Structure formats: C-alpha cells, structure tokens
C-alpha cells in the first residue's frame, strides 16, 4: 500500500526534479525546466496563447516556481 494520488502538473514535476538534483532557488528550477522544454520544442501556454519568447517563458516558469516554493 502506498497511499493516494495528488494532481501535480508536468511543470511542477520538473521543478521537483530540479530541486532533487540540488538546485535550491525557484529561478534555477525555472531555468532547468525551460532548458528541457525548449530542447523538445515546447513552450508554455498562458491564457490560451502560446508564449513565444524565451523571456516570456522564463518569466512565467519563474512565477510558477516561486508560487510552488511558497506552498
């Protein structure tokens, strides 16, 4: 027996992976997640629109990572 399941998005799972690998700051989690996503040709979608630039993606990931870190 393990327990239950809680919903955790892929991005948050990537943050956890980065933290597990020793990265401590949310900005580092965001950078690691973006490195992986961009290498796969993927971008974030916010408000129904794809974030086109590196800056937009990094900023959104950093925001999500900071929120996640505060939980």
């Amino acid at each position, binding site marked *: *027996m*393990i*327990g*239950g*399941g*809680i*919903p*955790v*998005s*892929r991005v948050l*799972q*990537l943050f*956890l*992976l980065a933290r*597990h690998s020793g990265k401590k700051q949310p900005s580092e989690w965001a950078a690691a997640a973006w490195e*992986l996503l961009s290498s796969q040709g993927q971008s974030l979608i916010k408000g129904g629109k794809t974030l086109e630039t590196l800056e937009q993606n990094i900023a959104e990931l950093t925001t999500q990572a900071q929120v996640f870190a505060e939980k």
Partner: protein
Amino acid sequence: MLTVNLTPAFVRSAGCDHPHRRVDYFETEWLPVGGAFVGCKTFYQGYNDTRGRLKQCKLSAAEILTVEQARETGREIVAAALLGADPQARVDLRAVLTLPEFVQERYLPSNSSWPIQLGKGQSLPLLWQTLFVLTAGSDLYPVQDAEAVKAAQSRCKKLNAYLCQRARDGGEITFLASP
C-alpha cells in the same frame, strides 16, 4: 375499516395499546388511490400491482414522516405503480444505510472528532457522490493512519522520483503519490 381524516393531531393521539394488535386507519375508502393509514403509528400506502392485486407498502414510522410527507411519498408510490413499477423495490432502496447511520455506526466509532452535522434522509450513494465531488475538487483527501503513512513514505519517494523522471519525456502522468 376505519376511515378517518389523517391529521397530525390524530396521528399523535392514535392509540397503540397492545404491541401485537394492529389498528388500521384508512384515509380514503378506496385505498389504491391514495390512503395512507396508520397502524401502531406506521404509515402505509395501498396500491394495485400490475396484476390488479391490492398491495400495501410501508412508508415510515409516524415519528419520522409528517402526514403531509407520507401523503407525498404515497402519491409517488401510487404513480409509480400505475406506470408498472414495483413500489416495493423503492422500499428495498430505502433500506440502504443512510448517511447518518453510516456515520454513526461505521465512522464515528473510530473518529471522535467528526465536525459535521448530518441531515436526515441522506443516503449512502449520496455520501459517495459527495466524497467524489470533494475529492475531485481537492477539498478532501483520503488518509491513512500514521503507521501506514510511515511505512509508505519510502515507497512514495521512489515512485515519485520515477514519475518526475518520466516527466522529462512527457506530461502523461499528472499525479504524484502521497502517503
């Protein structure tokens, strides 16, 4: 056959002197179209089954339903019988453990801090539905006792590490394990 006008006052004052003696009071002389009656303070509803035979269906103890509620329930039973349904099947459904009974008999004995006042007439299927909705909305989580949590922690960590690694390849699994 005693035909009476069933009123709350009459039901309150209706005698039940002998535990094995039943006295029936009919609200209408033609029972199948609607009379609820009380014998030892229990409401019944008469109806004709699909073969035209006169049947009666127990509604509830008079302490639980009001006269008007008994009439309303009785009307539903007669309507169902007219459409060919078996009103006794309804009685079987009502025999399902209600939410208050479930909480009182199964839940409270092991959980003394249950904070919610539960209403009458809430059925077990309703409880499941409520639990599904609350769980889906992340307002409620299933939990284990402390020992089970402790035993499951290392397995959870391993599984979550694997799932997070899987997240590198795609986002198919959007859940992690929680002990």
